[in-house]
Structures are given as C-alpha cells and as structure tokens.
C-alpha cells in the first residue's frame, strides 16, 4: 500500500469540461432564453469580427468627402447603400462598426487573458499558502481597488502613449483583483476538503496538489468571472478611445466613433447613436451569457 498514487483514488470526480460536457452546457444555456440571447449576440459579434472584410464591401478607412454626414439609408450616386449613414469624412458607419468589433474583441480577449492568468496565480498562491503572502496580496488588492479604474488607466496611458499594446497591458494588469478574490475564496474552502487533505497527507508537493486538485475545481467560477469581465473590458476600451487615449485613429473603434459623433451631435445624430448601440448590445449579450453560465455552473457564486 506504500505507493498508492493519490490521484488514482476515486475521492472526488473532478468536473472537467470535456467535449460532451461542453455540449451539455451549451444545451442548458439554450434552454434559458436570456442566456440564449447572450450566446447568439456573442457568436454574431465574433462572426462580425472574423468576417468584417467579407461583410463590408468597401474599405472602412476610405474617405469620400462628397458623401459626408449622409443620413442612414442613404444611397450614393454610385449606388452604394449606407444603411447607417456616413460620418464627417464620408466613411460608411456600418462598415466601421463591423470593423470596430475587431478592436473590441482583441482588447477584450487579450486583457481578460492577462488579468485572468494573473488573478488565478495570485488567488491560488494567496489562498493556498495564506499567512503574510495572503496579507500582502490582499492589501495590494485594496490599493488597486481604491483607484477609479478609468482614471488610473488614463494616467498610465497618458505617460506611456496610446497604442493597442499599451491598452491591453494596462487594462489587463490592473484587472486581476476580481479573479484573485474569487479564486482565493474557492481555494480556502477547497483546502479543507478531504480529497485535498488526503493528497497533502500522502505527501504530494504543493504544486501538484494545486494543479491536480485545486485548479480544476476553481475553474468554473473563474470562467464566469472571465466572461463578465470581458464586458467590463470592452466598456473600458471604448471609454479610453472616447477620451482620445485608446487605439489611435484611423483604426475604427466604437469609442473613437462616439467621440467623433459627439462633435456633430446637433446636426448628425446617427454618428454617435449607432456605435453606442453596438457597445450596448455586445455588453448586454456578454453579461447575459455570463449570468447564464453562473446560473448553470455555479448558482451559489456571489458577484
């Protein structure tokens, strides 16, 4: 009996998201109407981002001063239909919104990946080892949370200069706290469970206990947070672009389009209206999907 591998003991089935589980999850999400709506929106936005060059028959940067500030539904003399009108440089608004999904999703996915990884590691270390390490990270979390997020991001990007990379890094690094807190809480309760105690008792090294027993169980709440955090990141990115410290023009961003639209607010309402609707629908979809994931995977999770 001396060499029984703890991992072979059927102490608890770890819920891994294999292929069949993913489909079961999708089926359960579809059964909830709000989550289905969220799923449809998210899939549609992802398709728009991937297929933007196919969906939009003209260059989103192409200016046509003769066709500037035309209202929605305008057909240009060459027969081009501008369903959502044109902006102050005669660029097609629908096309720019579709291309704008790319920046929103790239920043969203990359920043969430950074924040999520950082938060996962900190949460695991903090919760598993406790003591002064835990104290240190939790005080760092308090410090991070004390700053109005958007102001901190603005100040840092003001110093570093606005670029896609800087925005992703700044938004990503400063977003770790939610993940760390939730993962830490999960670890604290998992640490006392029999299967983790058993693994430790037979001498599994900490890294192995964390990787095999703790991480798979902390994954579900992490996934829910990551989904909801994506919505926050998209809003932050568009706010930065709106304030002129986002991805620099002429790259189409929803926030940048809104900032342009604000200037022409009194004469051309469509400039500011449609990019904002795009943000609203995307964020609403992601939030509903996140709520649905939480309700199906982990109903007790408090956010």
């Amino acid at each position, binding site marked *: 009996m001396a060499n029984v591998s703890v991992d072979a003991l059927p102490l608890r089935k770890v819920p891994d998201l294999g292929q069949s589980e993913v489909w079961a999850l999708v089926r359960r999400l579809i059964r909830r109407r709000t989550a289905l709506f969220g799923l449809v929106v998210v899939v549609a936005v992802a398709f728009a981002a991937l297929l933007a060059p196919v969906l939009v028959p003209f260059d989103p940067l192409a200016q046509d001063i003769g066709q500037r500030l035309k209202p929605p539904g305008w057909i240009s003399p060459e027969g081009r239909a501008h369903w959502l009108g044109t902006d102050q440089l005669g660029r097609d608004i629908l096309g720019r919104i579709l291309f704008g999904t790319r920046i929103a999703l790239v920043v969203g996915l990359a920043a969430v990946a950074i924040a999520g990884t950082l938060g996962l590691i900190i949460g695991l270390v903090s919760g598993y080892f406790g003591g002064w390490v835990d104290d240190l990270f939790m*005080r*760092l979390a*308090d*410090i991070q*949370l*004390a*700053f*109005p*997020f*958007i*102001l*901190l991001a*603005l*100040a*840092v990007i*003001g*110093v*570093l200069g606005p670029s896609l990379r800087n925005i992703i890094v700044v938004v990503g690094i400063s977003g770790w706290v939610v993940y760390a807190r939730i993962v830490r809480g999960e670890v604290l309760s998992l640490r006392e469970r029999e299967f983790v105690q058993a693994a430790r008792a037979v001498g599994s090294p900490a890294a192995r206990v964390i990787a095999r027993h703790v991480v798979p169980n902390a994954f579900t709440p992490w996934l829910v947070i990551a989904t909801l955090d994506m*919505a926050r990141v998209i*809003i932050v990115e*568009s*706010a930065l672009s*709106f*304030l*002129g*410290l986002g991805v620099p023009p002429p790259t189409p961003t929803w*926030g940048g389009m*809104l900032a342009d*639209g*604000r200037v022409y*607010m*009194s004469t051309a*309402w469509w400039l*500011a*209206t449609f*990019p*904002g609707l795009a*943000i*609203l*629908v995307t*964020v*609403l979809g992601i*939030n*509903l999907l996140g709520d649905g994931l939480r309700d199906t995977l982990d109903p007790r999770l408090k956010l």
Partner: protein
Amino acid sequence: MSVYVGRRLLQSLVVLLGISVVVFVILHLTGDPTPLMLPLDASAEEISRFRRAMGFDDPLPVQYGRFLRGVLQGDFGNSLRHDEPALRLVFERIPATLELTAVALGIALLLAIPAGIVSAVFRNTALDYVSTVVALIGQAMPTFWLGIMLILVFAVGLHVLPSSGRGGLANLVLPALTLGLFTTARTMRLTRSALLEVLGQDYVRTARAKGVAEHRVVWKHALRNAAIPVITIVGLELGTLLGGAVITETIFAWPGVGRLSVQAIYNRDYPLVQASVFVLASTFVLVNLAVDLVYTYLDPRIRLG
C-alpha cells in the same frame, strides 16, 4: 472591538501609503519624466535644467521620500499649467464632484431600492420583468453614450435642459442621471436578489405560517435583513461613481475633480494629475473606512465575529 478598529485603521494607512507609491510610480514609468512635462520643442539645455530643478537626477528612493514628505505636508508641487499649488486646484473642484456624486447616489438609491423590492415581492410578474430588463440594459449601457443620448434628446432635441456647466438644479439633472444609472441598475438587482434570498428563509416561512400579514413579513422580517448586503455595496459603489464622474464630468463640462484630472492628463500637467488621482483614491479609502466602522457598530455579528 477596539482591536478590530485598530487593525482596520492600520490597514487603511497601509493602503494610503500604497496609493502614494502608485501615484509616484505612474510618473516614472518611462524612466525619465522630464520629456513628459516639457513642451515637445524644448531644447536639450532646458530639459537638463528642468531635470535638475525637479530633482529627477536623484536615485528613485530619494525622490519618493521627497514626494512622500510633500504629500504629508499637502504639497504636490505647483500645477505646470496654472502655476498654483496642485492640491489647492483639486480642493477647489471637490465640492462640484461631491455634489454630483451625492445626487447621483441619491437618485440611484431612491429608484433602485423600491424597484428591487417591488421586483422581489411581485416576482415573475410583468412588473418584475420590466424592471429587470431595464436594469440589465442599464448595466450594459456605457456612461459616455448615455450622456450623449440624453443631451441629444433633452438639450438638442427638446431644448428643456442645459447640456453643460454647473449652476442651478436644471444643470444637475442630466449629469446626475447619467452618472447614477449604472449604480441604479446594480443596486436594483442586488436588492431584488437579497430580498428573494431572505424571503426563502425559515424564519420568513415561520412568520407566514403563524399568520403574519404579508406586508408585515416583508417590512418587518425580510427587509431589515436584506438591507445588510445593500448597505455594504453603497461604500463600494462610491468607487464606481468616482470613476464614472471622470467621464460624466468630461461630457457635461462639469467643473469637478474628474474633468480637472482628464484635462491635466491632456495637458501633461503631472503634478496636477498626481494630486487629483491621489485625492480621489484617498476619498474612496476614507469613505469605505467610515462605512466599515459605522457598519461594525450597527451589526454585532461583524463586531464579534
């Protein structure tokens, strides 16, 4: 109790110290802050003179020590643009920001708590669905877009409310609504779920079983307990509101700390950026400390737990 209060005070001090480090580091992210603070066409001689004058040649710990000593004396240096002490400029704008945030929070609570209660009590009725959908949309709506849409409708379209500036009550309506919307939506959903949770508890079932009238069950038994998570979040919402104020003030040209700090960032006026970021972050810490202490006093479970 006094041990808890002492520990909480110490924690807040540590956090304030951490805030000062972050505010200091922001300026030094690129290594040398001198080029950031001077016009782009400054000569090499001007740059090196300015660098010496500001003490940017000293080792970083020395510079931080000097910065911290300044902060403790309320001295963040002079604003580069206005040539006045940065902290004084920030303090001049605080009343405007407090007014806007307080009114926004007030509106949010006045709307959200009754709506949340109605939603929970009349669960799964049309009323509940309507307020939940409104709250979901409210949570997804970016502040800056809402502000623009409100200006578009009420100032540009209907000409009934002013679109910018601070003055009478009419000036306050649109910015306060804009700023308060997200908090309204979140507080409404929280109130609803907190109340629903309490309404499912055994003591509520007992109260109903012994024939207590439904309105008394809600008012006397459920609401008091549901209030606890709602009160907790008010302190944290302040962070959301102060962050939102940065954007709302910019859109409505509201003369508060948020707009001041954004302009300072545009103008590369870093003493002013440091002072305003420090003041906003410290406000959040101090208000949350106050909320916690009041809360400890009110809820014995925390005091003794």
